[in-house]
């Protein structure tokens, strides 16, 4: 029990509200601006961030690079292979012409295929991360805010999705879907393969975001500022998107930035076990899978895509960590 003076007349009127020092800027810094400042000061973040930007530019500019480089991703250089289909020269045929050498067998240029693989990989990963984040945020926020049977149903679907072996289902589902749309003999376009992959990721990938958002929303739901909006007659949309989401975008952003490398990895893994993309579409996983057959004869072939994908995922992970630190200074890595 607080002990305030008994008599009202004795209450002193001390105004502190208006006597603010004028030196402080009138425009305040939002929590987002503060996080951005912290991120700017973090050297790891800036380094990995620039590396990411570099990778994205490479992916975006792939056709431009092809023009400058002068070699397309499907061109074959059989004349540079020996009688067994092995590239001539050292380190898998690395020359001034072919920077990363040639693929054994088909004799395609590895460098330009990696650039296009980067493009495919980043596109799929970003698209999948965006879609899963959207589904996860909407379902998680609804489940957390409304609770009741909706929460129970969404929770159960989450459990169910987690119980399904993702790789096997994806593996089995992709050809089934392809057959559904193309029949037995149809020529599958690479855009379709990409679309199917994104769809499979979307179906299986939203659960972690949904869980995260649900937990955060439940923690915020009973906070008084949410009730204040409710007492003013705010509707569901205002509650979710104006009141709740602005308070949880930090963890959502972090989970998004860590989801992208996961999808890069998953795409490569799926391509590796032979679903998803056809051999026509350049892809990291596909290249590594093919390179396993030449592990003894042409070890350079496995290193270029392997190191490329490592660098990409590494940069994303570093950046995601730095982002988490910037957004939540209290958390320890």
């Amino acid at each position, binding site marked *: 029990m607080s002990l305030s003076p008994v008599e009202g007349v004795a209450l002193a009127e001390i105004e502190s509200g208006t006597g603010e020092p004028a030196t402080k800027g009138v425009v305040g810094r939002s929590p987002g601006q503060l996080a951005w400042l912290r991120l700017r000061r973090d050297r790891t973040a800036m380094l990995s961030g620039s590396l990411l930007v570099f990778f994205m530019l490479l992916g975006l500019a792939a056709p431009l690079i092809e023009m400058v480089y002068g070699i397309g991703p499907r061109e074959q250089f059989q004349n540079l292979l020996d009688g067994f289909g092995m590239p001539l020269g050292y380190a898998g045929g690395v020359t001034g012409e072919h920077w990363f050498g040639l693929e054994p067998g088909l004799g395609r240029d590895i460098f330009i295929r990696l650039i296009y693989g980067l493009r495919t990989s980043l596109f799929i990963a970003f698209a999948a991360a965006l879609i899963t984040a959207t589904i996860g945020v909407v379902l998680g926020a609804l489940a957390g805010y409304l609770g009741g049977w909706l929460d129970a149903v969404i929770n159960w679907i989450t459990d169910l999705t987690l119980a399904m072996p993702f790789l096997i289902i994806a593996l089995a589902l992709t050809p089934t879907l392809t057959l559904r749309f193309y029949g*037995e003999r149809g020529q599958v376009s690479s855009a379709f393969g990409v679309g199917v992959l994104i769809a499979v990721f979307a179906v299986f990938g939203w659960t972690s975001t949904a869980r995260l958002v649900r937990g955060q929303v439940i923690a915020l739901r009973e906070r008084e500022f949410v009730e204040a909006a409710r007492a003013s007659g705010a509707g569901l949309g205002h509650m979710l998107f104006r009141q709740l989401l602005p308070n949880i975008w930090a963890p959502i952003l972090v989970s998004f930035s860590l989801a992208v490398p996961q999808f890069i990895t998953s795409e490569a893994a799926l391509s590796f076990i032979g679903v998803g993309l056809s051999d026509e579409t350049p892809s990291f*996983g596909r290249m590594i899978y093919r390179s396993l057959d030449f592990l*003894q004869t042409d070890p350079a072939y496995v290193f270029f895509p392997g190191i490329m994908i490592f660098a990409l995922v590494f940069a994303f992970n570093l950046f995601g960590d730095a982002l988490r630190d910037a957004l939540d200074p209290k958390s320890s*890595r």
Partner: protein
Amino acid sequence: MARFLIKRLFSATLTLFAVSVLTFLMFFALPRDPVTGMCPKNCNPERLERVRDDLGLNDPLVSQYAGYMKGIVTGRDLGSAQGGRCDAPCLGWSYVSNEAVSDTIARVLPVTLSIVIPAAILWLLLGVGLGMVSALRRGTWLDRAAIGFSLTGASLQLYFVGAVLLLVFVYNLRLLPVPSYTSLFDNPAKWASGLVLAWVALAFLFSAIYARLSRAQMLETLSEDFVRTARAKGLAKPTVYGRHALRAAITPVVTIAGLDVGGALGGTVITETTFGIQGLGRTAVDAVRSGDLPTIMATVLIAAVFVVLANVLVDLLYAAIDPRVRLR
């Protein structure tokens, strides 16, 4: 405790039931004739029709499903074309490998177990140990090295690590034989030497994740009041860290570990593909490639069983480690 277990098992059964229905629908009901995949090329329509009949594909879906489930629980008669009587747990007959699916599973399951269990022991010891040491020696070169290790490991791909390991230890140094599976009971030395690369590859990647996780957990625990209280009342460092802090820090690690092991037991697809070992995962991939529906169905179900069981086990372990968790 018993009530909690029963409740938990009930919901697990419900989840498994839903997984089985979904898988069934996905593979049997989608408009892809499952038979075309099962019959080698150039089969005539009569043979196709017979296979379809043997598989019961002309029956309504519900009775197909009921028959399948009945087979798992009590066994059933599949007809002479499918090896006659099929004992419980009957998972059907594969036209591709011409054997009962349960026989296939019985052959490949020990392979996956032999890969996952030693690897899991290795990655837990390595990962948690590294995380603890780096949390207790925070800021030293040891800590920084551990962070570097875990960041690198978390970004590496299993198939790439596997390829490098193969290249170095098998093809260049010739220290190890080409990976293969031999039963532990036939020849333990050969069992270990054939699988050690798979263990190392899996353990390397997973321990990176676990080192990160347990370091963060340990740091959080060390800053909590009860640890400070324990130190302040004069308990020795090893007692505090070993008994009080470790116990609290390891709880979330156990959860993740349980789920990871459960998931891995369902098939280490990438590992098996990289090292060319025929386990559950590789079998599933082959089944998908050849359109072998009964085998696909069986591998998916088994994987789901492992995940769901791991969930139940984790809940129980959780309660055993953390007395705050009330079993209701």
